[in-house]
């Protein structure tokens, strides 16, 4: 066997020298695939784990309950302490204030929770990423998340609450596993002793709050414990309270990474399929070319499997090596990705080499290539020595003479191109698949970019409940003068009250969205069924629908305080902000639970959103008493979208580069093979007087129909299925239904550009035809 191995090495080395370019191309494609697969796997396998690791490292509270000091009594503390499964408990004073702050250049309205940084604590410790000794009157530590949102050490963090400005100086960035991002609807700020006291003294005591952190003996029970605490507090609180638990925190903090990982894995699957097809195509070609040599080897006494081995050896070695290099390469790209994710997740993700992911990548790719090439090369075993020596089974092959030239119309060059096209089915298939896949991914990138960066309406609709132009907080909804005035305005598309309230479903406090008539809203967020229309109807979020195994038409019990009523489920709705943990009710519906309910939030949809600010000022001056506060949603959304626009453009650029690269590599392999196999025919054509240019055009044109069909199929396919595919990828985010616009001009332009690029690449690659001379006919 040692001798045999040597022999194979020699044969493989000889083959490699002969077809250097093609093997290298194959390797490049494979290591792109391996790099992406490894990235995807590393993210999928480690990201969530690294969150949990940090959680444990900081001994973060598995359940954190915050209630206002006015509602707090020692009794609660003891009751919580006695809940089964609680390991340790710790109470801290904090401050919870409604208000707004700037992020990414726009104003966000969200409560902040202030802790004393100098408290001696055992639970929910903070990880300090960066800090500096700056002397200032109001120093503050803020979440690492803000570092990626445009804040630097020394910058001022300004919090606006009740028209009062609280100005802090950032002296450090910390990792906070609970309130570190906006996803829990509370942002944590940590003030050193002095400034905490200063803030506490300057505010109304109604903002004083108590935070009770508990760790559990079994972390997986966090949701149950949280719901028991909520149960206990329900109906006894006069002001806001909240209860956050581990599972939920983990899900919201890691989902961007999950989507990224999914996209990488999906993309690498496409490329792996392409490389499998390439290996099969090349091996088929090798067998045809090496037929006689194989005959000699058989005659010399090599066994079928030995010859198969020598045929696929090169591909297997390349697959192994390329996937290893790809894995290595992926670690070069990882820091960039880590940066991107850190901006979204608010904690520092440090990834060392993951042996298992690397092993899986290498094994999967190598195994698939071995399998595919073995299956292709298997037919060698059936080959008989004598047949092979004669150059293969070329028995009477009565092919049709496609497009006889005397009867077919058209220029002789195009007729020859068409004849070329029909001559090789396998080549066409490979090209078709690759072009289809690349067309699909290119249009995917285009669609994502278009719907996030250019016309983000559909994207915003998918991730937000409703997107008005302005939200007004109204003092008294009984007074209809404001409502009437607004609805008379020609610039107003529609106006409606859209409120939210906290209700209890399955012992859990969740958000209910409330409006009079859902048919007046411009966009339905129900992905199945319909929105509630009557007072006994309800639409539930996908999280509740999945957890409780509810069907449309079932009844569900909704609680508010001590009231409880049954509602009929009319639909499932998606909600990215609430992770599907929310419901929709009509105003009449909430009145059944809470007859004290008051509409406060008036959503105005404008036709022309260019001067929203002016409109707000105008309305404020007219109704200074009615309008308590407002949110300029247009401005807020723009700021929030910036992160997504960046991600989308990076992704679009990467995909387009890879698409073009893939097309170029495939065409390289195909054209090299085509020219090699067609050397004699090209020589004859040159002899009878065809110029190199004509032959280059012919060869390039012969690929174009397949490219065209591939692009068209890919385009149609993507046009039909794109929204479903994106939904699958975005499912982790809670997106269940998507109405992304796929502008037909974009699809057509993509298709045309792809065809033109393919043609240019093909024409360029055909340059090697120049080297073929008619003279080779005699020297052969």
């Amino acid at each position, binding site marked *: 066997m040692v001798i045999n191995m040597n022999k194979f090495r020699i044969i493989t080395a000889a083959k490699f020298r002969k077809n250097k370019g093609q093997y290298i191309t194959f390797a490049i494609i494979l290591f792109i695939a391996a790099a992406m697969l490894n990235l995807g796997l590393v993210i999928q396998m480690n990201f969530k784990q690294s969150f949990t690791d940090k959680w444990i490292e900081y001994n973060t509270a598995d359940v954190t309950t915050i209630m206002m000091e006015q509602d707090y009594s020692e009794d609660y503390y003891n009751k919580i302490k006695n809940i089964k499964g609680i390991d340790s408990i710790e109470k801290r004073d904090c401050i919870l204030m409604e208000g707004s702050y700037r992020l990414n250049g726009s104003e966000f309205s969200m409560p902040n929770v202030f802790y004393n940084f100098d408290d001696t604590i055992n639970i929910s410790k903070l990880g300090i990423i960066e800090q500096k000794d700056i002397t200032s009157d109001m120093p503050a530590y803020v979440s690492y998340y803000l570092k990626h949102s445009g804040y630097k050490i020394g910058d001022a963090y300004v919090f606006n609450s009740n028209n009062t400005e609280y100005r802090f100086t950032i002296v450090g960035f910390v990792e906070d596993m609970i309130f570190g991002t906006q996803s829990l609807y509370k942002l944590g700020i940590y003030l050193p002793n002095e400034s905490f006291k200063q803030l506490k003294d300057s505010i109304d005591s109604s903002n004083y709050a108590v935070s009770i952190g508990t760790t559990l003996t079994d972390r997986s029970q966090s949701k149950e414990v949280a719901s028991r605490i909520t149960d206990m507090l329900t109906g006894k609180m006069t002001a806001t309270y909240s209860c956050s638990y581990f599972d939920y925190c983990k899900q919201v903090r890691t989902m961007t990474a999950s989507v990224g990982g999914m996209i990488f894995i999906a993309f690498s699957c496409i490329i792996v399929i392409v490389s499998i097809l390439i290996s099969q195509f090349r091996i088929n070609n090798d067998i045809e070319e090496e037929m006689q040599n194989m005959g000699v080897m058989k005659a010399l006494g090599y066994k079928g499997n030995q010859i198969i081995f020598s045929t696929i050896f090169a591909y297997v070695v390349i697959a192994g090596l390329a996937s290893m290099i790809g894995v290595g390469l992926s670690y070069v790209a990882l820091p960039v990705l880590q940066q991107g994710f850190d901006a979204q997740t608010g904690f520092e993700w440090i990834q060392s080499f993951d042996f298992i992911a690397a092993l899986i990548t290498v094994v999967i790719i190598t195994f698939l290539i071995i399998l595919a090439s073995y299956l292709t090369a298997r037919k060698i075993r059936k080959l008989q020595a004598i047949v092979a020596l004669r150059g293969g089974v070329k028995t009477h092959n009565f092919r049709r003479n496609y497009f006889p030239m005397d009867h077919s119309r058209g220029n002789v060059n195009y007729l020859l191109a068409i004849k070329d096209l029909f001559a090789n089915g396998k080549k066409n298939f490979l090209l078709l698949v690759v072009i289809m896949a690349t067309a699909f991914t290119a249009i995917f990138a285009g669609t994502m970019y278009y719907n996030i960066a250019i016309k983000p309406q559909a994207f915003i609709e998918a991730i937000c409940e409703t997107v008005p132009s302005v939200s007004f907080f109204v003092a008294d909804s009984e007074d209809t003068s404001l409502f009437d005035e607004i609805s008379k305005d020609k610039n107003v598309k529609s106006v409606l009250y859209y409120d939210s309230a906290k209700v209890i479903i399955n012992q859990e406090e969740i958000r209910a969205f409330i409006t009079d008539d859902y048919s007046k809203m411009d966009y339905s967020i129900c992905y199945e069924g319909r929105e509630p229309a009557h007072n006994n109807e309800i639409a539930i979020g996908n999280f509740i629908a999945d957890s409780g195994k509810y069907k449309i038409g079932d009844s569900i019990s909704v609680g508010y305080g001590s009231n409880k009523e049954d509602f009929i489920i009319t639909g499932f709705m998606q909600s990215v902000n609430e992770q599907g943990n929310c419901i929709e009710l009509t105003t009449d519906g909430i009145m059944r639970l809470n007859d004290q309910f008051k509409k406060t939030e008036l959503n105005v949809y404008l036709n022309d959103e260019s001067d929203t600010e002016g409109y707000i000022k105008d309305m404020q001056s007219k109704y200074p008493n009615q309008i308590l506060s407002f949110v300029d949603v247009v401005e807020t959304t723009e700021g929030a979208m910036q992160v997504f626009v960046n991600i989308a453009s990076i992704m679009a650029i990467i995909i387009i580069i890879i698409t073009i690269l893939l097309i170029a590599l495939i065409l390289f392999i195909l054209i090299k093979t085509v020219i090699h196999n067609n050397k004699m025919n090209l020589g004859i054509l040159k002899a009878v*007087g065809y110029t190199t240019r004509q032959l280059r055009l012919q060869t390039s044109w012969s690929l174009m129909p397949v490219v065209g069909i591939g692009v068209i199929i890919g385009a149609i396919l993507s046009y039909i299925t794109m929204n479903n595919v994106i939904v699958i990828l975005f499912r982790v985010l809670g997106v269940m239904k998507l109405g992304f616009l796929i502008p037909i001009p974009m699809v057509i332009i993509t298709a045309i550009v792809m065809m033109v690029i393919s043609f240019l690449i093909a024409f360029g690659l055909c340059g090697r035809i120049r080297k073929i001379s008619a003279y080779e006919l005699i020297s052969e």
Partner: protein
Amino acid sequence: MNKVIETKKLCKTFSNGGIQQHILKNVDVQIYEGDFTVIMGASGAGKSTLLYALSGMDKPTLGEIHFCGEEISKYTDDKLAVFRRKNCGFIFQQIYMMDKMSLLDNVLASGLLATKNKKEVTKRAVELFHKVNIDEITYRKFASQISGGEAQRAGIVRGLINKPSVLFADEPTGALNSSNSTAVLDVFTDFNKEGQSIVMVTHDLRCALRGNRIIYLKDGQVAGECLLDPYKPKDAARRTKLDDFLKEMGY
């Protein structure tokens, strides 16, 4: 008689791993209109190389080739290709029909280069096929489905489709058996009688007998030339003259 081709000190050198090999050395030959010129010589004497240089298929290393008044030795590849379309027809020893097209399409692929009028070219192709005794059923077949003799006659049709100034043939009977060879050679003789200039490379005496001007190459140089009367079957005097010439040349 008019000279169609004239070469001046034609040389062809091949480099192989740094070692230069001179295949043609200072060859001066003239090809006359209407002649059936035969280039003979032992194998390795440079016959085919000379043929491919004369026909503009390959560029000489040194020297000049005047073809119908054009100096073609310094033409670019593409310019040569365009030149060949109109002026040169080829017949190869291995026939070289494109395997994915019918015989007719093979011919038309060549014919449509010079003229765009498809009807006219097709008509001429069919006429030529009839002349070389190939019927419609055959010329709609692939080269792999017919005999070598038929394929080579189709090759002649392809060579003549553009009415070339000179028809070049490289050992046209080299891959054929005896009876097929005779049929192919008869076709050559017939076309020559109609005034077609032919240059043929061969080392076969029977082929050489068809020519009226024999050029003998030895070691890349012209060793001698012999003029014969036009071919007639069973012409003993002609035969003797050729035999004597070849003996003198050391054939």
